[in-house]
């Protein structure tokens, strides 16, 4: 009980402390922190446009956070969310360009499935390599990230590239576009957020309520005991990577279906890596991850407004870094405390 309260308080306190520490930095560059934070808040929640922007940014972050967090729960460090996101988006786009003949009720879910399958398949490569050869997933997923990145910039310039301007694929069929929840000027609030929240709830249920979740978490905590309990470790590694990859793939697919309506070479923009921070802040809990992603999304959106009052964007990167540092430091402190208790008790 105490623990749960703690888990909730730590990120909040971290945010407040990070804002306090950053206000010193803002003072040092000769700006007023109150003005800056007022702009930050206004930029994130001050208008319909602001809220829409926050939600647009939050949607993929929830999914990449879930991808990484789910991996962590199963004992895997999936750094490849970035690459899986790109692969998901790319293959989903290739599919969605050609589904004009399908009704939306069919085209929308099918496109999502294709994108998830692409992400899952791509991540499963690292899973199979780990299960069969013991190759560490950190190394393999990083390498797969590069492959995905270069492949995507090739794809949008040569085989799929169209038109002038941003390197991009053709637009996807109208039937595969997610209906916007709200349109504010040029900004369309995608309904992808609903899908992302549903995904978080589903992952929560899988982890906490199902036999598979029991096996995956058990493997993550103690693979020896899991094996002793008749759980097939290698199968679970591949499955966990695939689910993690499916979530990343969905992140990319929703960006295509709801925001850009086409595949862009720079679509992921580091959101796969942001997933690592978000999983950490959300303490690998699917529901916690929703809030962590929302926090990150609002900080990022609000920080654009901060620039209008003369605070450079780097300040917000400092705030983010401090938050993550404080959350991580809490883990360190708590780990040490638990260790000490154990030593004394024995």
């Amino acid at each position, binding site marked *: 009980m105490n623990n749960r309260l703690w888990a909730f308080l730590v990120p909040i306190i971290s945010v407040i402390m990070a804002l306090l520490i950053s206000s010193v930095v803002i003072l040092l560059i000769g700006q007023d922190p109150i003005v800056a934070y007022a702009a930050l808040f206004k930029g994130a929640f001050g208008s319909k446009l602001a809220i829409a922007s926050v939600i647009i940014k939050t949607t993929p972050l929830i999914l990449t956070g879930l991808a990484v967090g789910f991996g962590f729960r199963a004992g895997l460090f999936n750094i490849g969310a970035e690459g899986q996101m790109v692969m998901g988006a790319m293959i989903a786009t290739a599919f969605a360009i050609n589904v004009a003949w399908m009704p939306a009720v069919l085209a929308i879910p099918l496109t999502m499935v294709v994108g998830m399958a692409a992400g899952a398949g791509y991540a499963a490569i690292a899973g199979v390599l780990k299960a069969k050869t013991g190759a560490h997933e950190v190394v393999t997923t990083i390498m797969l990230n590069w492959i995905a990145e270069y492949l995507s910039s090739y794809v949008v310039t040569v085989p799929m590239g169209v038109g002038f301007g941003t390197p991009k694929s053709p637009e996807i069929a109208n039937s595969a576009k997610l209906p916007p929840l709200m349109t504010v000027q040029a900004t369309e609030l995608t309904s992808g957020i609903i899908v992302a929240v549903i995904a978080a709830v589903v992952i929560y249920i899988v982890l906490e*309520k*199902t*036999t*598979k*979740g*029991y*096996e995956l*978490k*058990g493997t993550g*905590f*103690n693979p*020896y*005991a*899991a*094996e*002793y*309990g*008749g*759980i*097939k470790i290698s199968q679970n590694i591949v499955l966990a990577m695939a689910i993690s990859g499916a979530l990343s793939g969905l992140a990319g697919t929703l960006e295509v279906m709801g925001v850009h309506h086409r595949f862009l070479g720079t679509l992921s923009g580091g959101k796969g890596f942001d997933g690592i921070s978000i999983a950490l802040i959300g303490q690998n809990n699917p529901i916690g991850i929703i809030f962590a992603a929302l926090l990150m999304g609002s900080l990022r959106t609000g920080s654009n407004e901060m620039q209008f009052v003369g605070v450079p964007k780097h300040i917000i990167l400092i705030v983010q870094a401090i938050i993550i540092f404080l959350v991580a430091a809490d883990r360190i402190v708590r780990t040490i405390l638990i260790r000490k*208790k*154990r030593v*004394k*008790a024995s």
Partner: protein
Amino acid sequence: MEKAVEMIQIVKQFPGVLANDHVDLIVLKGEIHSVVGENGAGKTTLMNQLYGLLKPDSGEIRIFEQKVSFKGPRDAIAKGIGMVHQHFMLVNNLTVAENVVLGSETTRGIIFDLREAQKRVDQLSRSYGLQVDPTAKIEDLPVGMQQRVEIIKTLYRGAEILILDEPTAVLTPQETEELFSVLKRLKENGKTIIFISHKLNEVMEISDRITVMRQGKVTGVLNKNETDVREIARLMVGREVVFTVQKPPAKSSDVVLRVENLWVKDYRKLDMVKGISFEIRKGEIYGIAGVAGNGQSELVEALTGLRKPEKGRVILCGEDVTGKSVRELREKGMAHIPEDRHKYGLILQYPAYYNMILGRHYVQPFVKGDFLDHRKIQEFTKTIFSQFDVRPNNIKMLGMNFSGGNQQKLVVAREMSAQPKLLVVSQPTRGLDVGATEFIHKALIQLRDTGVAILLVSMELDEIMSLSDRLAVMYSGQIMGEVDPKEVTVEEIGLMMAGHRFEDLRRV
């Protein structure tokens, strides 16, 4: 007589635990004094304060009738206290002499005089009957020898008072005998020895006086000549303890497990089990004794599906199950109490009720479709908790927060409640106190009497001799002989553990 150690009204508090509650310990010069008690009784805490590793919250320590206050082990060593820990603190690839002088070598000038060190070590070992080759490397020495090196190390630093923490836990009966004669020799030379143990037979054999501890308090100080094992056990546990396991003879009938010419390699690809064959019948405990590292672990792993055998056959209830997975074996009626409950037996980060279904987490009645049935699991765990008296009675507590004995109860309870046909048990009471050990022994006998075949692997000779219906001794991957424990002596078992075949022993 002069008092070597006086610990007066020692209090040591840890968060949530009063580890030492006004403890008095008086050790006379030149005696062997045992400190006994169950795990968690506060023996080690007390000794750590005497050795300067911990500072008492209150109370006084006197060494040779002189008040002391240690800032660390260095101070304690300077006052003539030496400690031999349960886990040896030796550097494996250095020689005996190098290990002995390690840590005190700088006090003898900048240049390290190895020859001088070897001479001193040789002298020490000869005068106390501690034969060790000073030029041998530690990694080449058997455990008993390594322990001698530890003792020499303390003597080299001028110890007058030696603390030995559970010194016999790692020794064969012969090695234990040798240790005891060394201790007696040390005593004759005027050294004072504090002997920590929970093996009461040994305590009775070696000590002059005995201090018994329970739950942080001293419950008795006894003269060896005026007491017996029963009294000590009562003071330790707080009630009467039944010592000899009461068991009716096994009603042997059908063969449950048959192992034929089994060969198993370890992770280094070395043969660890070399052509073992045996049978276990229904309602029988089949014991495997031996010094650790002679292939018992690999045998258990091969029988429980954790390791694929190289050659040979394993037949469970008439069905060939060689090389089957853990899950298949469990489904066919195998259950397994592993030797390392932390590594294999439990997922420490899971709550108790999650641990209670490990291995059966996907079968009725614990699931509804693909979902866990939390209500049923918790109900089941509650029943098991009261049946096996697991404490604290909190089924949601994480595995890591239970004490060692209760963790083992969780494992034992889970495996026994699976209604197995074959139970493979490895080191079931390692590190457990008398109460928990007694409980687990009883439970094993009860299970046997319901007709389960039990394979018991243990390094504890007392345990394996009293529980087994038939007994095999393993040495270097082979069975040295299969005997009826009632018809062999401990000495014979000891010789078999050292590599002698039973037939050869009886022939002489």
